[in-house]
Each structure stands twice: as structure tokens, then as C-alpha cells.
């Protein structure tokens, strides 16, 4: 479904040049759920932003469903790949009702039956029709993230890119959103790429996980390796250990990976 080869992105030039992502290769099958984990600055979000066309100056090849993406994206090509952002407080327009927010992608892509589609999608993400004319400030964080998911889903995409979809939420709300995401994937046969710094969250939703450090994939692991902690690369091991909770003895063995 998604193939990325020799992908790289560089920001800035001269001595301020930062190679945010380099030698990046990825292959995700249709209906798969793939995870990207890494610490801040590892380039994981940058990859997603290039895929949806927010960053346009990447090098390499990105193929979605066999078709190579061009740097200047057509409106139609954007329809099949949608993104859910980290912060539900920042990603919804504060002065637009949910109806406006959900209609906008429909207008851009010239889809009809808008009312019907909006009511259907609200129901799917677990919000009733009474939410349709509310503003974001009238919703809780979890409800807002449901709207952000509805906005991505309303175009009936085949791929959804999730950029830390639950990191701004409480653990109880996080469980609800994770359950919703896995139910939607089953119902629509969606392909997910999920970015997170939380190994447990990625491990819950994804079957294969790439660990990134300083713009490169250091290791690709399966869900079984994630459960048992039988990983080969030292960086992955360290990340896994740190996710187990506070451990003074383990901390002494930590090192910097440059």
C-alpha cells in the first residue's frame, strides 16, 4: 500500500543544515497498522508531514497504492491519505462549528450528500447528531479528538496517518480513542501509520514498529519482540527499558546515541 524508498529531508542550508530524515525506507501492506517510535527530534513526524504534503521538499520516492507521489500534490491524490494531529485543542478551528469543520473537506473534494455524510461520520466516531452545531470549546479533549478523526475519515481515505493521537489525553480517554481507532480500522480496512513516543500505545495498535533515532530507522521490530523486549539494537533496548518505569539501576547503563 505504501512504499517509501531512499527518502530524506533536509532543513536549512550551510552550517545550519539539519538532515531531519535520511536513508528512510518503509513498506506497509494494505490494512496493516505500522508504528513509528522515537524521541523528539528523531524525524518521525516529519515523515508523516511529507506524506500528506505539508513538507514538500523531500527527496526519494513515496508510492501509495502503486502511484508515486509528486512534490506538488493534486487535490485528488490528497483524498486517499488523511492525517490526525496530536493536539485536539490546536487542530480544530475555534470559531467554526463541527458542521463547518466536517463540511470543508467535502466542499474541497466536491462530494455531495453532505448532511448525510456528516451525520453518518459523527455516529461512527461515537458522537450523536446533537454535536453537529457545537463549537470545539464546548467539547472535552476526547470528544475533540473524535472530531479530528471524523474529519480525516469523512473523505473515505484508505490511509490514515496518526501523529501522536492520544498524547494530549488522559489515560481513560486514551483507551476510548485507541478502541475507536482499532474498531474503525477493522470496519473500513484502513491502513494506519502511527507515530508516538509511547511504546505501549504503539505496541497496542500496531503489528510492526520502526524505531527511529536522529532521522534514521535503527531497527524494525514486531509486536512479539515488543512484548518480550527481545530487541537487538542498543537504542531500542534503552527505549524499551525506559518505558518500563523508573529504574535507578537501569539508568546507570543509559548512553547517548548520536
Amino acid at each position, binding site marked *: 500500500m505504501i512504499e517509501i524508498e531512499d527518502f530524506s529531508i533536509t532543513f536549512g542550508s550551510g552550517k545550519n543544515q539539519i538532515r531531519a530524515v535520511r536513508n528512510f525506507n518503509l513498506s506497509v501492506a494494505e490494512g496493516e497498522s505500522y508504528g513509528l517510535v522515537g524521541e523528539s527530534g528523531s524525524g518521525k513526524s516529519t515523515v508523516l508531514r511529507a506524506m500528506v504534503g505539508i513538507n514538500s521538499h523531500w527527496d526519494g520516492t513515496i508510492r501509495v497504492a502503486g502511484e508515486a507521489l509528486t512534490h506538488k500534490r493534486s487535490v485528488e491524490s490528497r483524498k486517499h491519505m488523511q492525517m490526525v494531529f496530536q493536539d485536539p485543542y490546536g487542530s480544530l478551528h475555534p470559531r467554526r462549528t463541527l458542521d463547518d469543520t466536517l463540511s470543508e473537506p467535502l466542499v474541497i473534494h466536491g462530494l455531495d450528500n453532505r448532511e448525510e455524510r456528516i451525520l453518518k461520520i459523527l455516529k461512527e466516531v461515537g458522537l450523536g447528531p446533537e454535536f453537529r452545531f457545537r463549537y470545539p470549546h464546548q467539547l472535552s*479533549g476526547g470528544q475533540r479528538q473524535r472530531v479530528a478523526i471524523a474529519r480525516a475519515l469523512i473523505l473515505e481515505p484508505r490511509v490514515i496517518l496518526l501523529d501522536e493521537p492520544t498524547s494530549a489525553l488522559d*489515560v481513560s480517554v486514551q*483507551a476510548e480513542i485507541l478502541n475507536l481507532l482499532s474498531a474503525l480500522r477493522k470496519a473500513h480496512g484502513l491502513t494506519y501509520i502511527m507515530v508516538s513516543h509511547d511504546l505501549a500505545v504503539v505496541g497496542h495498535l500496531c503489528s510492526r514498529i520502526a524505531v527511529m533515532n536522529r532521522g534514521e530507522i535503527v531497527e524494525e521490530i514486531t*509486536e512479539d519482540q515488543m512484548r518480550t523486549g527481545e530487541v537487538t539494537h542498543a537504542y531500542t533496548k534503552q527505549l524499551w527499558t*525506559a*518505558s518500563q*518505569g523508573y*529504574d*535507578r539501576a537501569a539508568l546507570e547503563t543509559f548512553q547517548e546515541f548520536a
Partner: protein
Amino acid sequence: MTMNKMKMTGFETSSPGEAPLISVRDLHVRFATPKGQVHAVRGVGFDLGKERLGIVGESGSGKSQTGRALLRLTAGNGSIEASRMMFDGKDLMQASAKTMRSIRGSRISMIMQDPKYSLNPVLTVGKQIAESCRRHENVSRAEAKRRALAMLETVRIREPEKVYSLYPHQVSGGMGQRIMIAMMLITNPQVMIADEPTSALDVTVQMQVLSLLDDMVRERGMGLVLISHDLNLVSSFCDRVLVMYGGRIMESLDAKNLDQAQHPYTRGLLNCLPRLDGNHDDLPVLRRDPAWLTEGDDVPEGGAA
């Protein structure tokens, strides 16, 4: 002291026999808003010794307001009430604004969540640390600078001289939080209130920051209140945990016994965490019971039945 009794009261510190550093009973924080009164903290009581006490809860559970009330940092429309709020023999409820100023930052410090917003963007970090020192103690500029540099070294910043003259936007999140800790520790406080000190940080950096706080508790005998929403983190780091919901303490228990928690709210919170060794099944969703907000009204404050 039996385990059972500990759970019942929540007032027992990890070092029985010693007088607690902070003792709070029946704390209420209320806010007057245009939409009516918001009762954020409802009858919280606990004792803090020279230990690591964790307060966990979801957003809106009143955990941060509990920490802020101790330092009288509650917003202007808020009111604090408590039948007892003692710090080292002083009654904080009766203390004048002047007394509070002498305690705040000097004997009880607070680390805020996000270093990006808590550091002054137009002063170098070194100046800010030295200012905290000069504000509370009568020392010369040179002495304050020397102590600030020493403090930066204590929080394991490699090139203190270089970092001293950096501005907050030039440092990373983890380093920013270490600078905040340096600023708060330079006055050698007896109690540190850390309000989500690591939730903006990467897991490995989070461990390093926590180990610094751990050192302070072990080596200086400081009391630490760690406010967090991360149950796993708190249970692995703290000695004791208070679980809050709706402004009340639902349960108080030893951190190492967290997996044996009795209260349905604590159990619910634990169950809805995705686990590294878990499978892809749907996570159990937390069900809230309105009865939790009234239970125990007939027993002393803070006691979770």
C-alpha cells in the same frame, strides 16, 4: 503499622515516628466563576515526611490545585479552606503574605510542568538561577553566580559555564527542566512540589530528571510531592501514592502495592493503560460511579472506604 490501617487513613508517612514536614487536613479549594462555584478540592488530607509522595489523577481531579494550595498559589478567584495546614510547625492558613513569601521558593519550592513557559525568555538561564538565590538569601552577585554554576553541575549539565549564558529558547526541553530544578533547589528547600515535571519530556530524559529528584530526597532528606497523571511512572518512582478523583482522595497506598489497589477507580485507571506485553484486544474503558464522590462522607476526610 499494618497495611490495612495505612489504606484506611492515608495520613501515615513512610517514616513513622518522625514529625511530618507537611500535614494537611480537610483541604477545600473553591473557585468563584460566572457560572457559579467550582469546588475543585473537596476535603483532602495527607501527611508528607521525608519521602516521595505521588498524587495521581486525571485532569480536573484537583491534584494540581492541591499542590498549589500548599503554596497559596491558587488563582485570585479561588479560596482555600483547611482545618489544618502545617509546615514544619507553622500554620500556613494563618501565615501572612510576607511569611508566605519567605517560605515560597525558599523552603517549599514548586517545579511547573513546562519549562518553556516557566522560564523568563529575555533573561539568560544563569541569571534566573542566581536571582532565585539572591532573592532568598543575602549573598553577593559573585557568590550567587558561583552557587548557580555549582547547582547546574549538580543537575548534571555538562558545560555549566556555557549553559549559564544561554537563553531559554536555546536549550532543549530536558535541559530546560533541569534548569528549573536547579533554580528551585538552589535555596535548599525542605519540600519540593513537582507538578508533572516530566510529562513534556522523552522517556529517557524523564528518567534522568527523576533520578535528580530522587537524589535530593535521599541525600538532602527533602520531602517530594510528585503530581502526575502517569500511574506507571508514579508507582515505580514514589514511596506512597494518593489517587485523586473529583477533588477527593479515592485511595492512599504504598506505591509497590499499587497493583493490589482495592478501589474501583484505581483499578479502572490501571486497566485502561495499554501494556507493553498486552495484546490488541479492546482496552477496558473506565466507568465512573457518582457514588465515589459522596462515599466516605461519614468517615474522616480523605478516607477512601
